[in-house]
């Protein structure tokens, strides 16, 4: 019996994992971090483009800035998608039952990812490549950018509701579609956490992008110079990161109990300390004298990377904790089921060996009886009718069955059966016996060897 009523314990896929579980988990965590990096650059970047383009209506240089940032999104969004397939494979193989169950329960929204992301990408292309053409209709152009940003803002809800739902099998029976999965605790706080991270990561990336020595600032902008750009992006990153200090505790407190552990808190605390150090560095970079170069970037980058590793690992620790008990029950059930299947197969094999049905009867009941009954029309004519026609010519049945024509209006045509003349003849004889009322009442023992079982029972 299940430990708690209402907790579904499915069976796992009864095949071995393709690699050591530790390797698969490491792969999942690493590949996911790379994927989410580009997702952040894409989402955060498109929000920054939108803000800069709107500001550009007053200060034309911000329009130039938006235009420079939008160039990076083409690359980042393509990489975000293609790099998503790796972690998708890893999560599919390691958390098969959990992931697929959550997918099915939010199925309509889940499959909408395909048209939604396609639309977001096409809108982003239209936005990027119509900058000059729509220069006279700036409102329209901004609306185009806003549309793709809006889609980028909506799509993460689908992913988050899924990877949250997969951790809580006890919730599965209570969920009715995407929106109820969205309302489970922790989804909204995590969404805010992701959004702030996106803005912070994209802003840091842009600080480096515009700060690099090769970037022709003077050529691209009239009023914006390097120190100003640096300050803009570090400030954006810092504000977003400070926001995490508010949202982070909310995420932690709204996490359901079953995944919590002191070890998890330790990992998160380490991550937070890296993050706070990065924030201090950002602050120093903002207040630094105008002329000093962007020399803290490498330290900030390293600290943020460490933060991401700690948080990505912490996320995995929580996931493993959360499903641990359930997975043990599932493994037990899978094992028991495997034994039951093997035992039933053995019994079936014994049973088949004992049945001594004559071949004609066996073929008839397995194949012909689907459409032909003794005394009435099912799909095809009755055996009585057939027997009248072929009583003296059983070979006629064999010929007809191996290559039937169409005789009767309003009836579906009979499919051809090419099981070999011998078997067909046995069936034909049996049909004539039945149709003329001379059925052998007691068949057992009559046939030498039963015809090989067809179809299903083969395996």
């Amino acid at each position, binding site marked *: 019996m299940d430990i708690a009523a209402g907790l579904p314990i*499915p069976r796992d896929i009864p095949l071995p994992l393709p690699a050591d579980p530790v390797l698969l988990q490491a792969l999942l965590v690493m590949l996911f971090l790379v994927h989410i990096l580009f997702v952040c650059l894409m989402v955060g970047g498109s929000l920054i483009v939108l803000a800069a383009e709107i500001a550009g209506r007053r200060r034309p240089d911000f329009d130039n800035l938006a235009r420079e940032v939008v160039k990076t999104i083409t690359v980042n969004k393509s990489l975000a998608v293609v790099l998503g397939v*790796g972690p998708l494979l890893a999560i599919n193989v390691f958390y098969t039952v959990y992931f697929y169950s959550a997918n099915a329960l939010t199925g309509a929204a889940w*499959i909408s990812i395909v048209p939604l992301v396609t639309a977001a990408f096409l809108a982003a292309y239209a936005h990027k490549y119509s900058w000059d053409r729509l220069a006279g209709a700036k409102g329209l152009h901004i609306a185009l950018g806003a549309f793709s940003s809006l889609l980028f803002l909506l799509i993460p809800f689908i992913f988050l509701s899924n990877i949250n739902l997969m951790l809580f099998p006890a919730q599965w*029976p209570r969920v009715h579609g995407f929106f109820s999965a969205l309302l489970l605790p922790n989804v909204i706080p995590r969404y805010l956490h992701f959004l702030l991270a996106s803005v912070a990561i994209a802003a840091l990336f842009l600080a480096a992008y515009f700060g690099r020595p090769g970037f022709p600032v003077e050529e691209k902008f009239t009023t914006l110079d390097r120190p100003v750009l640096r300050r803009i992006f570090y400030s954006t990153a810092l504000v977003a990161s400070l926001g995490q200090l508010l949202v982070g505790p909310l995420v932690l407190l709204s996490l359901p109990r079953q995944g919590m552990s002191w070890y998890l808190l330790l990992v998160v605390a380490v991550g937070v300390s890296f993050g706070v150090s990065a924030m201090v560095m950002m602050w120093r970079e903002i207040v630094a004298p105008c002329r000093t170069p962007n020399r803290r970037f490498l330290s900030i980058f390293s600290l943020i990377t460490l933060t991401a590793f700690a948080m990505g690992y912490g996320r995995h620790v929580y996931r493993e904790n959360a499903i641990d008990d359930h997975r043990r029950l599932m493994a037990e059930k899978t094992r028991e089921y495997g034994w039951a299947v093997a035992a039933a197969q053995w019994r079936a094999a014994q049973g088949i060996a004992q049945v001594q049905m004559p071949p004609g009867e066996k073929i008839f009941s*397995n194949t012909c009886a689907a459409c032909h*009954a003794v005394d009435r029309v099912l799909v095809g004519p009755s055996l009585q009718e057939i027997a009248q026609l072929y009583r003296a010519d059983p070979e006629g049945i064999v010929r007809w069955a191996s290559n039937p024509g169409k005789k009767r209006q309003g009836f579906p045509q009979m499919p051809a059966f090419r099981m070999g003349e011998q078997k067909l003849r046995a069936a034909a004889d049996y049909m004539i016996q039945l149709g003329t009322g001379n059925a052998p009442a007691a068949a057992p023992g009559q046939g030498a060897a039963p015809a090989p079982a067809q179809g*299903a029972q083969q395996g």
Partner: protein
Amino acid sequence: MIEPVAPSSRPAREVAARMDFPIFHLDFFGNRLLIAVIASLHVLINHALAVGALPLVTLLEWRGWRRGDEGWDRLARRILFTCFVITTSLGALTGVGIWLSTSLVNPAAIGSLIRVFFWAWFFEWLVFVSEVVLILAYFLTWEGWGRRHKPLHIGLGAALSLCSWLTMAVIVAILGFQMDTGVWTIDPGFRTALLNPVYLPQLLFRTPFAMVTAGLFVLLLLFFFTARGSDLRARAVRFVSTWTLAWTPLWLVGALVYWHVVPAAMRDNLPVALGTLQFESWHVWLVRLIAAAVALLLLLALWGAAAPRRLPAVALLLPCVLSLWVLSYFERVREFVRKPDVIAVYMYSNAIRHADYALLGEQGLLAQATYTSVRDIDDGNRLEAGREMFRIACTRCHTTSGNNGVLAKLARLYGWTEWDPEALRTYLRSMHNARPFMPPVPGTDAELAALADYLIALRDQPQPLPGAQTAGVAGLAP
């Protein structure tokens, strides 16, 4: 209304579940159509706009460079732009969509395949990443770096073309393996996939097909990207027509090889002779379609090569439609051979393993199901039990009354009037013998009888069956 479905202690709620996964179900479109639409779009974009178009664009760029023709170079870039926008949006997303849709529709099958093919798919993913990186680099550096280092840029195009072809070559190996009966149980690995008898003929068929359809697509684009009556249009139409013309005989050869090798290999996979007949009738159609497409293409490409100025854009639409038809028919025949299995000799299309049948026949499908509102059938819950049976055993392919609906299928046998429960039960029990592409109905006789009663009740009063994506898995029978 379907008869009172009120299990004693719990509220009567819609329950949607399959064996071990909640059951996603589209009761109007049918689940197969979802996969078919996404996969066909993807294959078409992949074949025509990536595998075929990228080498063609590279060739165009090379020719423009050799002749120092600026207009030609700009034209090549515009064609690449179109391919770039479509492949990196709809192309990439439908590729991911194949994963998402198949794992919604048949999670047990995909979950099993991924355990065996993880590293093959992982390798394919690496090739795919390189393909995307290369197409980004190829397109985005065309104007700057690419202008200054034209030979290198053309080399980039060649590398991209190769990568694109490799992605197809890997995935075709995986597809071929799924059709290779019995290998699954003996040696499930990527090496056997490459060695399976259907692999090379498929590749030989698909490669020139991709080149030819790319030629068609680019010809169509030329009519938008060049001025009517211009010299550029005439030269470009002639060039692309020659490309198409050159690949058409190869496609014919590929089709012939496929025709000679594959039916035998595929027939061996078909469990029952009856399936062979069905397959052959489809196959004959495929051959006719291909013959018509090849003839039309040859005619058209000859026209384009000989008299490029007189080739009307409308003339291109028919071969475009025909190619699409050939491709979808090709994939459909390929898929058909798999039936009644989703994984040859391991798992039926209904996501139930062959090995499970003995146990399910003894103890019951519902008794063994994770998500079901009924386990023990009694007079009060027969129809509800039948509905659960239908949901678990039939809905991977059938709807109630929508696409590939079960009612219409049965009406073809019995008409729409009285259905005899006894006859229906007999039919369900042995259906897989008369229709070898159907899996046997799993479960006990009582469950099968409940299914028959449900189907009859459904015919009297059709009622849609919601999937887990809206109805959830509200019932977990103890």
